[in-house]
């Protein structure tokens, strides 16, 4: 049994809990095209063609087809076919990808031709993010569930119909089940307790979760040894996939995490074969470290430097919820002696504003605290609004904690400038117009009681009523016209510049 590695991130402030539990993984294959769209899939496909000869591939396909027929004949579909565990193979081909023509895997002769035809198309569409798994498509959900590590008890009884396409909330009671399931098998690699911390919402916030995940990956790389007769890059990618699938089962990945994983896999894919294992490992570890340093820590320093120039004496700054970047901006502005007041607007059920309030009060800032309903009342005194973001999408929409859109809307109505502080690694090519097509559903039971006020027990036993549902959204989409300015490490840009930054600064050769 390996000792549980500790997470050490030095200059990072984020929420942590003191209890940790150990998590284990099984090696499982997760079709990462669903979760991690991007050009590296195409790269991998092409590598497969290079490495195995045509005859070998044909043999593989024949055996798979035979197995499939046998399974179908026996009346129960299995997905375990010979050759499935070969690193890098994807026996389901491009069937899983929605919107692309379904190419049957067992037509061996035509497959190569079709692949060649299809590849240039894919090149064109490389920049468009692949569609995500939609949870109201029953076949795909059933397939995904069969391959999932953790059993998803989707309680369809209390589902809000409008959000059927999103994964329903997984309660942390799974913790027990997870531990029991994976303590048995000792060929599993121990992954740090990051996943379970996400599950219990101990680590919250785009930057925090990403950094914790990168630290976990670093540990994993350090402990990794290539199994014999396996290519390191492919085996490692498979391992990463399995770990990531575990994380996303605990809690759907944030966009910051998704971007980090993409860049990491790209790096793995680019590893030269001539490197020894030790060299490869160290290069990967250094990539992870550079990513965290450059894209997150140093970027935040730059953002703080830019944002602080926008705060003047006598300002009343409003913020919503808790964003670590905004907190750094306010602390720094206060430390260099600017005289201003802060209004912290909070919203249920997470009440994250209280954490920010504590931290600002401890530094001696003058604070006003209120709830989201009173934002129209308080906005008359406010001169500037600083907000954080989970991500900024290609059409300028700010994807952030629920309630941010309301604050931005009211600020816009009162002609108060709204400034979003966001690192560029969180930008995404996806576009979104409303908060419903893509979101994260939180725990509905969190709405039942009110923190600190025991007299509100109206909703206890809400699940007994068939007609009552509780909806706990995590994110919302703020339209770009409410945003005056986005402060990134590359400078202060209007929301219309986001696709430009995506194009210019996020081309693959960066890392």
């Amino acid at each position, binding site marked *: 049994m390996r000792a549980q590695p500790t997470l050490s991130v030095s200059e990072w402030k984020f929420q942590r809990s003191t209890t940790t539990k150990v998590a284990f993984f099984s090696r499982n294959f997760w079709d990462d095209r669903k979760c991690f769209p991007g050009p590296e899939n195409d790269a991998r496909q092409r590598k497969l063609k290079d490495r195995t000869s045509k005859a070998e591939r044909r043999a593989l396909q024949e055996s798979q087809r035979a197995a499939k027929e046998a399974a179908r004949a026996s009346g129960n579909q299995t997905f375990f076919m010979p050759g499935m565990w070969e690193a890098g193979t994807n026996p389901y081909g491009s069937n899983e990808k929605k919107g692309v023509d379904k190419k049957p895997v067992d037509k061996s002769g035509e497959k190569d031709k079709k692949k060649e035809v299809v590849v240039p198309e894919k090149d064109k569409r490389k920049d468009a993010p692949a569609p995500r798994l939609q949870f109201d498509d029953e076949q795909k959900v059933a397939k995904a569930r069969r391959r999932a590590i953790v059993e998803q008890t989707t309680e369809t009884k209390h589902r809000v119909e409008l959000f059927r396409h999103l994964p329903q909330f997984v309660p942390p009671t799974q913790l027990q089940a997870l531990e029991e399931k994976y303590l048995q098998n000792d060929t599993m690699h121990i992954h740090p307790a990051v996943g379970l911390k996400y599950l219990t919402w101990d680590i919250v916030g785009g930057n925090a979760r990403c950094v914790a995940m990168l630290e976990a990956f670093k540990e994993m790389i350090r402990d990794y040894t290539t199994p014999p007769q396996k290519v390191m890059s492919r085996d490692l990618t498979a391992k990463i996939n399995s770990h990531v699938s575990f994380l996303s089962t605990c809690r759907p990945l944030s966009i910051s995490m998704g971007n980090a994983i993409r860049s990491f896999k790209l790096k793995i894919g680019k590893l030269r074969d001539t490197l020894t294992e030790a060299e490869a490992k160290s290069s990967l570890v250094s990539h992870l470290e550079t990513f965290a340093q450059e894209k997150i820590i140093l970027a935040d320093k730059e953002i703080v430097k830019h944002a602080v120039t926008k705060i003047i004496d006598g300002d009343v700054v409003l913020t919503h919820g808790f964003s670590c970047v905004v907190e750094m901006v306010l602390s720094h502005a206060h430390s260099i002696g600017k005289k201003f007041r802060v209004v912290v607007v909070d919203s249920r059920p997470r009440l994250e504003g209280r954490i920010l309030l*504590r931290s600002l*009060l401890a530094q001696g800032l003058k604070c006003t605290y209120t*709830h989201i309903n009173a934002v129209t009342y308080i906005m008359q005194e406010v001169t500037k609004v600083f907000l954080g973001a989970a991500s900024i999408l290609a059409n300028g929409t700010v994807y952030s904690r629920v309630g941010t859109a309301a604050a931005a809307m009211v600020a816009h109505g009162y002609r108060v400038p709204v400034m979003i502080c966001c690192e560029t690694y969180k930008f995404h090519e996806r576009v979104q117009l409303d908060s419903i097509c893509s979101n994260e559903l939180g725990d509905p039971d969190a709405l039942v009681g009110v923190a600190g006020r025991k007299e509100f027990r109206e909703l206890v036993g809400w699940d007994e009523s068939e007609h009552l549902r*509780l909806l706990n959204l995590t994110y919302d989409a703020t339209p770009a016209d409410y945003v005056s300015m986005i402060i990134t490490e590359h400078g202060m840009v209007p929301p219309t510049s986001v696709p430009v930054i995506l194009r210019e600064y996020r081309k693959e050769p960066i890392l």
Partner: protein
Amino acid sequence: MPDLQAAVDDFVIKLKRRQVEGSLATAKSTVLLLRQVVSHQRIPSSGPASSLIDAVKSVGSRLIAANPMELAVGNMVRRVLHIIREEEATIVAAQVGVTPVSDSDDDADVHGVPGLSAVALAAANRTALRAPSLHNLLESLPTSAGANVEPVPESDTKSRCKSSDKNSKSWKLKHGVIDAIGLLLGEIENYHSEISEQALEHIHQKQVILTLGRSRSLLHFFREAKKKRSFQVFVAEGAPRYQGHKFAKELAAMELQTTVITDSAVFALISRVNMVIVGAHAVMANGGIVAPVGMHMVALAARRHAVPFVVLTGLHKLCPLYPHNPSVVLNELKSPSQVLDFGEMSDCLDGTDGSPVHVVNPMFDYVPPELISLFITDSGGHNPSYVYRLVAEIYSPEDH
């Protein structure tokens, strides 16, 4: 008399201590109290109306001062005053032999000329009694200004014609006023049913409705609509009172598909909502409303997504005042402990030089009339721009 005093004091204390809250309850109690005041009042033969008016005014000003945010109290006082003035005008008109016309308010403010003949007075009264409508404007008035009964030394005009039936007149006035107050009471108690009758006109099949907090009239409205239509409701909880929870429970008990959401999620969901229907605490004379906190944000979101914002209100909530600086004047700040518990932040405050955290907890929100699409009242549906006419119908300008 002493029981009346005691009753008045009792009610004033209840208002001050917020033991009686909510427009319906306060309106009813006010009207009942004022009816008592009127019935106990000894009417002198000369100037019966003015004595009644003074009595009601003195009691009313005490009630209004007890809880200035409870606008329904002031509304009812003004309604009763208007009733008294109306009754007076009707009786005077009847006395002079002119058939009493349907009431309206005495809108003229000019002092009557002493020594005016009774006939001319009555004629002026008649024109004043009618609503200022188009055909009135085209008629020529007997005097350049309508006559107002009040400031005229009544002994002069009335002594000539009414000496014989002085007592019966005051008795008639009192009786008329008490009858009218009874009608008013009935109107207040039944406004729910009047509003609910209009429910089917506004809710269609499979509609998605959003509301915030809890409103009794809305409950009846939905109940009526549920009989014939199926629709679903999103209820925003309405911090910090969380009335939305109770409301959602009631709606679910009616077998209506309800979903409880947090107030922060209103903007996220409102694009999928067909209509926002809410109740109000009070309606101001310009068409704006005073509503539970958070309503302004909902109204802004509704306008952004072009979702109609409908307000259900009874006429007893209609206030003849204009909102100047409503966030300060028409608002009350409640205890901060509802938002942030006492002592919760105390660990961060030790060691600093006492910069306490300032917690803001307003109770009401003012929604300007531009954001409101429709008022549904017991007298039908109205635009916010029509509210001033409703005010003119049920109140007298002297009492504003």
